[in-house]
C-alpha cells in the first residue's frame, strides 16, 4: 500500500529518507504537474522546468509545511505562484524581444526550407490540439487557471479557492464563464 502524501512530506523532513520520499513524490505528481503547466504555456520543456521548480521549492520548504495543509493543494499553490512569476518574467522579456522586428514577412531560413512532410504531420490530432490551445489561451488568466484546475486536475471549487486564494463564489463564476466560452469556441468539436 502506497504511503500518503502527508507521510511522504514527513519523511522528507528526515535526513535519512528525504531523497526517497522526494523521488516518490516526483513520480506521483510529475505527470499531472507538467500537464498543469503545459496547459498554460504549451511548451513541454518550459512545463518541465516549472514543475521541477515546484518540487525543488517543496523540498526546500519541507520544514515549513504544516500537517493541516493538504499536500496536493499546497503543491498547486506553489505551482500557481511559480506560474505567475513565470508570466511576469516572460512579459518583461517580451519587451526586448526581437520578434516584433521580424514583421509578418520576416521569413527565416528555416521557413524557406521545404518541409517535405509538414503537411502530413498536420494530422487531425494536431489540429484539435491547436484549436484547444487557441481556445484556452483566449480565456482571461483567472478563468484559465480555474478551468485547468477543475477540468484537468479534478479539483473541487473549495480546493481551487484555496489554491488560488480567491472566494469560492469567484471560482464558480469564473468556471461558468470559462466553460461557456470554450463550449462556444469548440462547438463543432464538442457537439458533433
Amino acid at each position, binding site marked *: 500500500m502506497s504511503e500518503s502524501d502527508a507521510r511522504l512530506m514527513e519523511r522528507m523532513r528526515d535526513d535519512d529518507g528525504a531523497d526517497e520520499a522526494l523521488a516518490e513524490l516526483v513520480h506521483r505528481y510529475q505527470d499531472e504537474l507538467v500537464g498543469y503547466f503545459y496547459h498554460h504555456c504549451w511548451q513541454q520543456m518550459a512545463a518541465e522546468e516549472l*514543475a521541477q521548480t515546484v518540487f525543488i521549492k517543496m523540498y526546500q520548504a519541507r520544514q515549513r509545511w504544516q500537517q493541516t495543509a493538504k499536500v496536493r493543494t499546497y503543491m498547486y499553490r506553489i505551482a500557481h505562484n511559480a506560474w505567475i512569476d513565470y508570466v511576469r518574467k516572460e512579459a518583461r522579456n517580451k519587451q526586448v524581444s526581437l520578434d516584433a522586428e521580424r514583421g509578418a514577412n520576416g521569413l*527565416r531560413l528555416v521557413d524557406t526550407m521545404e518541409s517535405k512532410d509538414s503537411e502530413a504531420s498536420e494530422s487531425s490530432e494536431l489540429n484539435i490540439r491547436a484549436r484547444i490551445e487557441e481556445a484556452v489561451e483566449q480565456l482571461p488568466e483567472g478563468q484559465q487557471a480555474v478551468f485547468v484546475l477543475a477540468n484537468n486536475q479534478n479539483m473541487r471549487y473549495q480546493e481551487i479557492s484555496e489554491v488560488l486564494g480567491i472566494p469560492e463564489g469567484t471560482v464558480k463564476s469564473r468556471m*461558468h464563464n470559462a466553460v461557456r466560452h470554450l463550449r462556444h469556441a469548440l462547438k463543432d468539436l464538442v457537439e458533433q
Partner: protein
Amino acid sequence: MTANLDPLWKAVVEGDTACPDGEALAKLGSLLREQSQCKASDDFAVRVLAAAQSSGDESDLIDAYYDDGDMATVAAADPALGKLRKIARQGAQPPEPVDLLPEVLDNLHRQSSRHPLGDMDKVTRLRVWATVIAGHAAAIITIVILQAQLFKDVELPEASDYVVDRKDPSLYVTISSVEETNNPEQLTQKMSEALDDELPLRWSQLRDRPEALFLLRQNDDLKNLFRKFYGTDTCQATVQASLSWLRYQQQENGAFHKEGEAGAGSRALATHSLALLALLADGYNDYTATSIEKAVKHLRQWVDADGKIVVGSEDVLRDVAHGMAVLALVESAVLLENETLFAEVERIVNVNLPAQRHAIAGLDGYFLLAVETAEVSGMNIHADDLASIRGRARTGIKHKDAGNLGLMALTRYLYGHRDSSALKKQIESLSGLLPRLDDKHRSDPLSWFFPSLAFREAGGKDWRQWNTALQRSLLPCFRYDNVENVAWVKHQQVQYADNDVFATSLVLLNLQAAHRYIPLARSH
C-alpha cells in the same frame, strides 16, 4: 430641473429650435432616439428571460459536473459538457513522457553543494579551495599519465580500404565499419580514463570541466581514435584539404571572404561564423591557432558596444547567423582560454539571449548549442533565459524535417533523456530521411548538421546508416586542387548557399560531427 433651462438640452430632447443650430440639434436628438429603439421589444424581453433561464440551467449543470462530481448524470443530460472535458484534458497531455527526477535531484545537489561554502568562515573556505585545487592538480597529472599509456593497448582496426583518388571522388564513399570491428566498451573505458571519470550522462554533468567537452578536438590521439571508430577517418584527407582551403581564403583582416563576396549583412556574418566553427572543430592547435585568432578578432567587429550582435536589416538568414556567430564566439572563448575574451563572450551571450527566447527553435539550435556550451564552460547564464530557450528547442518545433527532428533528438541526448520513447521515434523518423541529393543534385548540409550530431550519439547501426548516406551525398560535391592540396565545395551544389566558403564550411561541420563533442554515456 436645471436641464430644462438649458437651450441645448431643450433642442436635443424636446426638439426646441430656438437656440443657435437648433434645427440640427433637434434632428440629431430625433435620429438618436429613433436608432436606439428596439424594433421587437416583446421578443427581446422573451429572449432575455430565456437566456437567464438557460444560463441558470447551464450553470447548475456545470457546478454539478465539476463540483458535485455527478459526472455520469450530467454527461447524459448534456453530452457536450462531457466531451469538452475529455478533449480539453487530451489537449493538455504533454507530447512526451516525463522524467523529472534526475534533473530535480541534480538541481538540489548543486544547490546544496553551493550553499555550505558560502556559510563557511574564511579559513575553512581556504582549506576547501586548497583541497579542490590540489585535487584538480592530481587529476591533471593522472590524466597526463593515463594519456601517455592510453593507446598502447587499444587494438585499432587495420587501415581502412578507403582509396584517395582525387579524380574520382565517388571512391571516397567506401565507409569502413570500424565500429563493428572495434570494441565500444573498450573505447568508453579509454574515454573514462582520459576523463578520470565516467562518461557523463548529460552535458550538465560537465559543468565544472569545460575542457572535457572539447577533449576530442584538443587531443589528437583521441580525435583520430574517434574518427576511426565512427568511420569518418575515410574522409579525413578531404576535411584537412578543405580546412587548408578555408585558411587560404582568409584575408589579412581575418575575414574568410573578400569584401562583398559573401553578400551583405547577416549572410556575411553566417559565412564567417561557419568557417570559424569549422576550424574550431579541428581544435585550437598550431595548425589553426593563427587563423582562429584572426577570425575571432574579425567576428568581434559585428558586436556593438552593448554586446549585441548587429546584423544587416532584413535577411532570411538573420537569426541563424546570430546563433552561428554566438556559437563561434563561445567555442573560441573556451578553446582559447583567454579570460578577457571569456568575460566578453559571457556578456555577449547574456545580452543576445533574450532576443532568442521567443524565436521558433528550428535552426536556432546553433544558439542553443552556444548557450549550453557557455553553461558547461562556467559562464554565468541568466537562468530564466536559459530555461526558455531550452523549452523552445525541445517543443517549439512544428516541422518534421531532418533539421528540426535532428535538433529535437540532439537536445534529448544533451539533457540525458536517452531512454525517452520520443527520442526513439525521432531517430526512427530520421532514419527515413537519410541524406540524399535533391533533383538539382544539391546537398542539404544545413538540415543534416543536427541529425549528424544526434546520430553520433545514437551510435551503432543508426549512425553507420546515416554516416554512409551523409558521405555519399557530401563527398562528391568537393572540388580538388592537387597542386595546392586543397578542396572546396561549389555553392551551386549546396542548398541555401550563395558562396563557396559558406557551402564548404557547412559541409565540413557535418563531416566533423564524430569528434565535435565528447560522447555521452549510453546507459545509466
